[in-house]
């Protein structure tokens, strides 16, 4: 029986990009369905009644929600190729720890960075940079967080790089200057088709951010 895989998606969502990368890494055929987040489809509301958010992975009719939960699910179901999580329980716990850290320190601050101004923005920038620096420490001299191949932490983090240009313009700083190792790691990841196919053009993200700022009345 053939697998039917649908991804309820939104082009600029870093969370959705994580799932796209995981599906690409595993070579899974899937249908991406771009969602309207203002006027949510009955399918989205039916498949994610609790949060009504994307991404949602629908595998043979059954929904899984929350990006990192979905990535682990994909890794477990299609476990015969491109493993994303380590097999050793301790290393697995460390990978989960850093993915959780990325959610708490990078993604959460990223969301605030382009919306804030003045001292509040400076505070968010500081936390964001400190978060990336801690991740640089974890990366160390490795090619990827996953070692020789991309893994769970790489998949969790790399999507937000498509927003770096927007953060830099809105926050008036250079991420490369502050965290050169992370930027070098991003460039390495982008050489992989699974990543470059899954991330949008940073200029498009910036255009979108400008639109959102106008709509929200943020100057």
């Amino acid at each position, binding site marked *: 029986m053939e697998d039917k895989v649908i991804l309820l998606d939104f082009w600029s969502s870093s969370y959705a990009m994580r799932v796209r990368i995981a599906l690409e890494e595993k070579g899974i055929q899937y249908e991406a369905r771009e969602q309207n987040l203002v006027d949510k489809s009955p399918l989205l509301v039916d498949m994610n009644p609790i949060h009504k958010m994307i991404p949602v992975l629908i595998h043979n009719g059954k929904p899984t929600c929350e990006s990192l939960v979905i990535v682990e699910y994909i890794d477990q179901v299609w476990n015969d190729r491109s493993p994303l999580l380590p097999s050793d329980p301790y290393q*697995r716990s460390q990978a989960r720890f850093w993915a959780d850290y990325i959610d708490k320190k990078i993604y959460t601050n990223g969301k605030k960075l382009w919306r804030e101004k003045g001292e509040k923005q400076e505070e968010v920038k500081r936390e964001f940079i400190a978060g990336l620096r801690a991740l640089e420490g974890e990366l160390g001299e490795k090619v990827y967080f996953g070692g020789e191949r991309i893994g769970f932490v790489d998949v969790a983090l790399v999507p937000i790089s498509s927003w770096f240009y927007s953060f830099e313009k809105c926050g008036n700083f250079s991420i490369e200057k502050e965290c050169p190792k992370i930027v070098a790691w991003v460039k390495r990841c982008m050489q992989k088709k699974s990543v470059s196919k899954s991330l949008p053009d940073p200029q498009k993200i910036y255009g979108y951010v400008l639109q959102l700022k106008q709509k929200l009345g943020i100057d």
Partner: protein
Amino acid sequence: MAEEVILLDFWSSPFGMRVRIALAEKGVKYEYREEDLRNKSPLLLQMNPVHKKIPVLIHNGKPICESLIAVQYVDEVWKDKSPLLPSDPYLRAQARFWADFIDKKIYDIGRKIWTTKGDEQEAAKKEFIEALKLLEGELGNKPYFGGESMGYVDVALIPFYSWFYAYETCGNFSIEPECPVLIAWAKRCLQKESVSKSLPDPQKVYEFVLVLKKKFGIE
């Protein structure tokens, strides 16, 4: 080789309780170390330099931080007894989803109940009951979230039951009339020694909350 398991914890932390319950379910012998959170031990700072928080599980000298990550680790290492996560990837994803829901909703909203007053407190109470009702929906007719025996979601949620009396007293409301199925589930869990030995007396938790309120100048 003898296993050395240490848990850095704080008696009233629902997050610490999760790990205590998981270790008890698995019959793992461990050393419990109470931390003074105003004067954190060098060991805590060394073992969790990123967040400097409890709980930290230390297994043969290696630290695992973040309660749900530690619970998953315990489940994977001591896998021959009392499985907490289901073996089926889809059911496992659903368990992770609900544990994530509990993390996102219960602690923060519960905290608002005892740290705010007036309209803000009323809104928090409403949100809290709504979240509990969604959990009741997920429980359905099952004795436990894990089915016939306690599982990951039960372990994630039951610690907060020790804080219900504090929430109810501070918020001047009663949870049982709103969520009788959930309260029945909680009492069922408390009949298990792994749970009853891991949860503090709700009265003590309430007295602790009063001390905190005084310290933070909340009346």
